[in-house]
């Protein structure tokens, strides 16, 4: 209570406070290292829920188109959200997954209608109405045999890409 303020020029006594107290420095260092350790540990734990290997089933499948499929008519392989078409230029596959929020669109004479939020697409998959931000995906098609094609739902191709029949 009775310490006098040390003036400049006077040698610092053992009892005078240090500029940065040693205890303060050690305390600060301890808190910083604890905070860093906690942060890194949390980040490490937060890494766990992000899967490194996707558990999705294979996205490639074979489809055999019926001989009688008229041009512009969709062939919808069961269990897959894909519509396959054949016309004079070749075979192409359009994903039926709406680019808005992932509902399955229904093929209709004008193209595709989404049941969830009213997006509409033309026969090429371009958006003509509603909230969908992008055209429907066109999927990679490879010819495997006569009338049999390998379709990859995981790989998209530019609009209008058709595999020669």
């Amino acid at each position, binding site marked *: 209570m009775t310490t006098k303020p040390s003036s400049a020029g006077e040698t610092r006594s053992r009892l005078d406070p240090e500029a940065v107290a040693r205890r303060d420095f050690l305390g600060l260092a301890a808190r910083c290292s604890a905070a860093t350790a906690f942060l890194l540990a949390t980040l490490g734990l937060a890494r766990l829920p*992000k899967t490194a290997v996707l*558990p999705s089933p294979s996205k490639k499948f074979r489809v055999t188109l019926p001989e009688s499929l008229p041009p512009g008519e969709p062939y919808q392989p069961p269990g897959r959200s894909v519509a396959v078409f054949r016309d004079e230029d070749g075979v192409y596959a359009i994903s039926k997954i709406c680019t808005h*929020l992932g509902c399955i669109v229904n093929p209709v004479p004008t193209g595709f209608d989404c*049941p*969830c939020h*009213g997006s509409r697409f033309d026969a090429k998959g371009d958006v003509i109405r509603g909230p969908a931000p992008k055209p429907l995906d066109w999927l990679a098609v490879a010819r495997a045999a006569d009338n049999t094609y390998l379709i990859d739902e995981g790989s998209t191709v530019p609009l209008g890409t058709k595999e020669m029949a």
Partner: protein
Amino acid sequence: MSQGSPPALRRLLANLRAMPRAFWETAFRSGKPTTDRTRSAFVFGNVFYHLHSARVHRWSLRWPTTWGLGLITFWSFALTVVTGILLMFYYMPYPEGAYESMKDIQFVVPTGRLVRNLHRWACNVMVVAVFLHMARVFYTAAYRAPREFNWVAGILLMALTLALAFTGYLLPWDQLAYWAITIGANIAQSPREVTDALGVTHIFDPGGLQKLLLLGSEEVGKEALLRFYLLHIMILPLVLVALLAVHFWRIRKDGGLARPDDAGQRLGPPPPGTYPVFTEEPQKTYQLAAIVRGRTPQVSQGPENTLPAMPHVFYAELGVLMFTVFLCMLLAVFWDAPLKELANPQVPENPAKAPWYFLGLQEIVSFSAFTGGIGIPTLCVIALGLIPYLDRERDGTGLWFGGPGGVRLFLGSVAFGLAAVIGVEAFAIQFGWLREWWLDVPQLLVTFVNPGTVLVLIYFLYSVWVARRYNSTRAGALAVFTCFLCGFIILTIIGTYLRGPNWEFYWSQADWPVH
């Protein structure tokens, strides 16, 4: 040996006879809560009650102060916890088992149907009550200092309530659940709407990350079901309970429920026979020198107009519990929780509707996924959290529609809010929006200029105008809060009743095309 039982044995028998009474007295040390002292000890001597203060102001006990809405929220949460634990006896969180076990619970398990219905209805009651509770706190200006932080905690609790409701929605694994979650997960992914338009998705993809974290896969499958189950029964309830403890604790630490400065005059003298009300100044005064900051504890001011929490508060809480259970039971007995057919990833429901409290959101999502699903909700939550920090006025605290403008401004804002939302919706339904007029409109324009953002802008400008006109931040807050409440209600009604297959507008479900 022969002269009767030894003293030790006699003492033992006497102790045994006294045991029940002694056990009771050691468990409840303070004795019967009959005097002022024992009533206080009853509260602070019990681990379950001691979150309460020993005495509460008479203002807090008036029904119109709160209408018991916070308590209804809490009790309905408690009811979901109890029924939820019961449901966990049978529920199996994997796709083949989930739907089967729901059928079992519904049709085989004794009282299973009732418990499931109770769980669903208690959740609905909780969602309604949490909205009404927020409206009550807002309209009585109870969020003001020193209660700003507790308002923010309340906003987080509301978000957690909705998150709990949403994660529970997937668990039955029926058509309703599957497509609601597909839509929800794609809303999480919707920042891609912006990153795709800017062409940066390959280097910066927060949307894809959110969806991946939520589903643990690219599509809604067994990984997603397990994650939603974990969130629903473990993570979210733990966070909610922790935050709830903070919320309740802060009510007390912030000086009880908000009340006007002249609450004493407004209340008048206590009704005869009300035990015991402190109305006099205390005989002693205390000097509290810099031990605590702020307004508590009150110095040189008696605990006027307070009542002991035991029994008054506890009776009120018990009454609200009875009401909440009665209400949920009534709903659960007469209305079954929906269970549609097994989830089919190939065929969405048409229309695929989320639970009612998300249908307002679904309505604005149908204009733009990102703006409606993430942009506007985030904006609303931030705006709500900012309210107590932007309105620092004191006038009207603790009074319904307190502050400048009052009921007239509230009614005016209701009229404006309803007119604006109905006008914008009617325009969009009648004339369509940008894409219908201009097919190749850039996506970013649709994302940022759509009926949802136009409505937000109208509400914002209106409240700025009100704030200037009344020269009051409270008036501006009242206007904007009322407008958004009206918008939420009308959008929810449109989403629930007036949207049919392909999200087309229909006046009634009878007009829906038959498939």
